[in-house]
């Protein structure tokens, strides 16, 4: 088991390196850098001014060198201005060049400086991630129990009227992407046109103080899309377990139906949904981006959109590192959890 985890960790690090390099390459293409220079300086820069701006910032070095600097394995670029002052990646505004460290990258814990928010990336990512964490917590609390209940109820009597109805509900929610359900929910519950006005159409105020009124709609919107999928998986696995021999034995023995479901079937039926729930995280990330944009909740997904829209290279890299780590760690947990839950599989 230890070796298995070690190997997976190795693959994870390799994947992370490849992906960040890819993002790095794409964000550092010349047209993107030109756009960056123009948004940083002014929009009427001539071509020479653009290249001198980029030269000063060290953007024109070869790609692997820049990547090494960002990673923290190569000393960072420094440029001496005509007046003798030195500027560079590691030198924070107001800091003396001599005191600044030579290496500053991810490995040293320095994530870079965001050109859009004028703040350090690590701080932004931390703050926004906390906000999104709050959102995700409530999504999970709403989504997982209701999906499991839906799936178990549908799967315990396959083909019954309950099963048909609940399956249709589950299919409908999987067919409704967040931007559709969000729009419908806002239209029905938050707009003055329908007039119910039970909830608020934006969640901006939920960033400080979340309450039912301003936070329920975004949570529900994300939860709905993922719920149907988990419920269908649970239903399938429950239906399979209910046809197993030991369930028949329990029935013949005279165990009551609720007892069969709760004591005999449930534990075995929940192995497959566990994996699915873990693998839902990457999908939820997508939903988070859409919902945070739709409800104007300034969390991690909103930051991603801002960073990508303005080609904020270091923030974008920070965001992708975090999201890739989230995806890979959930994959690892899902694999390990599957092995632990399912006695029929062993790794070595």
């Amino acid at each position, binding site marked *: 088991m230890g070796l298995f985890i070690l190997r997976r960790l190795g693959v994870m690090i390799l994947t992370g390196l490849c992906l960040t390099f890819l993002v790095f390459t794409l964000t550092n293409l010349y047209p993107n850098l030109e756009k960056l220079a123009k948004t940083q300086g002014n929009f009427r820069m001539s071509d020479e001014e653009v290249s001198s701006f980029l030269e000063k910032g060290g953007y024109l070095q070869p790609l692997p060198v820049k990547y090494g600097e960002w990673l923290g394995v190569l000393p960072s670029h420094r440029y001496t201005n005509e007046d003798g002052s030195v500027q560079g990646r590691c030198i924070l505004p107001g800091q003396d060049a001599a005191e600044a460290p030579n290496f500053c990258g991810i490995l040293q814990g320095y994530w870079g400086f965001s050109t859009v928010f004028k703040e350090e990336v690590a701080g932004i990512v931390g703050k926004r991630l906390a906000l999104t964490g709050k959102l995700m917590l409530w999504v999970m609390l709403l989504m997982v129990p209701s999906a499991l209940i839906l799936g178990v109820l549908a799967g315990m009597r396959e083909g019954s009227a309950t099963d048909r109805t609940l399956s249709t509900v589950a299919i*409908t929610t*999987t067919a409704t992407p967040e931007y559709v359900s969000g729009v419908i929910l806002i239209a029905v519950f938050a*707009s003055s046109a329908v007039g119910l006005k039970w909830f608020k159409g934006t969640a901006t105020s939920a960033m400080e103080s979340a309450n039912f009124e301003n936070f329920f709609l975004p949570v529900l919107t994300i939860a709905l899309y993922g719920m149907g999928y988990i419920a269908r998986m649970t239903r399938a696995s429950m239906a399979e377990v209910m046809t197993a021999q030991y369930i028949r034995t329990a029935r013949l023995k005279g165990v009551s139906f609720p007892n069969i479901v709760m004591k005999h079937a449930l534990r075995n039926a929940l192995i497959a949904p566990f994996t699915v729930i873990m693998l839902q995280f990457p999908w939820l990330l997508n939903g988070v981006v859409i919902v945070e944009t739709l409800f104007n909740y300034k969390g991690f997904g909103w930051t991603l959109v801002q960073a990508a829209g303005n080609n904020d290279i270091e923030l974008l890299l920070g965001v992708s590192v975090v999201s890739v780590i989230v995806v890979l760690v959930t994959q690892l947990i899902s694999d390990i959890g599957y092995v632990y839950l399912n006695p029929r599989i062993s790794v070595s």
Partner: protein
Amino acid sequence: MDPLSWGEILTRIFLQLTPTWIALVLLFVVSVMFKRKLGLYGKLFDSTVGMIGFALVMFWVFTGIFGALDLIVTHDPLAQVSGMKNKVPGTPLAGAEEGEYGWYLLGGDNLARDVFSRVITGAWIVVQIAPIATAFAFMVGITLGLPAGYYGGKLDTFLSFLANLILAFPVILLFYLLVTPEIVETGIPAYMATFLFVFPLIFVGILLNSRYYTQPNFRTPLLIGVLGVMGWLYLSLISEVGSKVHVIPGFMDLFDIPGGILVVFVSVVFVNSPTVFRIVRGLALDIKTRDYVAAAQTRGEGPWYIMLWEILPNARGPLIVDFCLRIGYTTILLGTLGFFGLGLPPESPDWGSTINEGRKFLSIYLHPALPPALALLSLVLGLNLLADGLREESLRD
């Protein structure tokens, strides 16, 4: 003219969609009459769920086609009529001329364009792109997934690593990285198109070659003919005068895909292929242990013949089901792109862009955002129900 009541609006929409209803009824009558002779497609008409799903899907397909033929659309989806800004459904057209349709059936949007016509025109965009993009993703996934599953070993490790790499990427980040104008300027999407669209050629080439390998007299002309036509289409598709990839002269270029659409197409294929790859690889791993594969190996068949003519046909059930689901997923992805204003031009009537525009005024005006949202919902729901019906029917035998 007076504004229409809701009953009149619905009746008029119903009448406006007459060509679609006729086509739907004809299709269903013919299919139900001959359902015993139509294989899996015919069996679909034994399942209620499958029939409902198929009806929903075909409704949008026909609406898209007839909309493109100008049989349904009431107004120009891009024309702005003064005085019609944000007007509620059923508002009579201000200053309507003779021969013009007198109402905005579903109201006007923020730029005073007809919502109804935009939804119908948007259907054509989705109905065109989603299935074709999914088909391309399947070609890529099958061509790479079969050898990965069949041979295993280093090839499998490498390809699976690549697939997982793309899958670990958040889809929206990938879209933002690929579909911005700056990246399009560098030509990366065009190069990706060149790479991804060559897979159908490889697939068909290997498919025919492995089948008719023993009859060279028949195989060689067949291959030259088929690959020649496909190659020309391929070159016309990727080559565009004035873009980075410009391989054949303009007069030989059969058609040009507008730049925005090609980029959207490429990114959707790129995102879908790794998942298809994983499914095909899994199926190939399972099926290669069967007896008929062993029999073919003993017979001395080549590896590609076994993959394409023994394994692939036996994997068709799950693949067809996944194909339906994946078209739905592609539709959702197209909507996502439109929602973030990526790729397609901002005035484009596709559903995602329309929802994105409508959502900004959602607290006051519902009618510009709701129809495209419900349209997208019903199409994806139809595809999911169809997939469910197909799964049930294909499991039955």
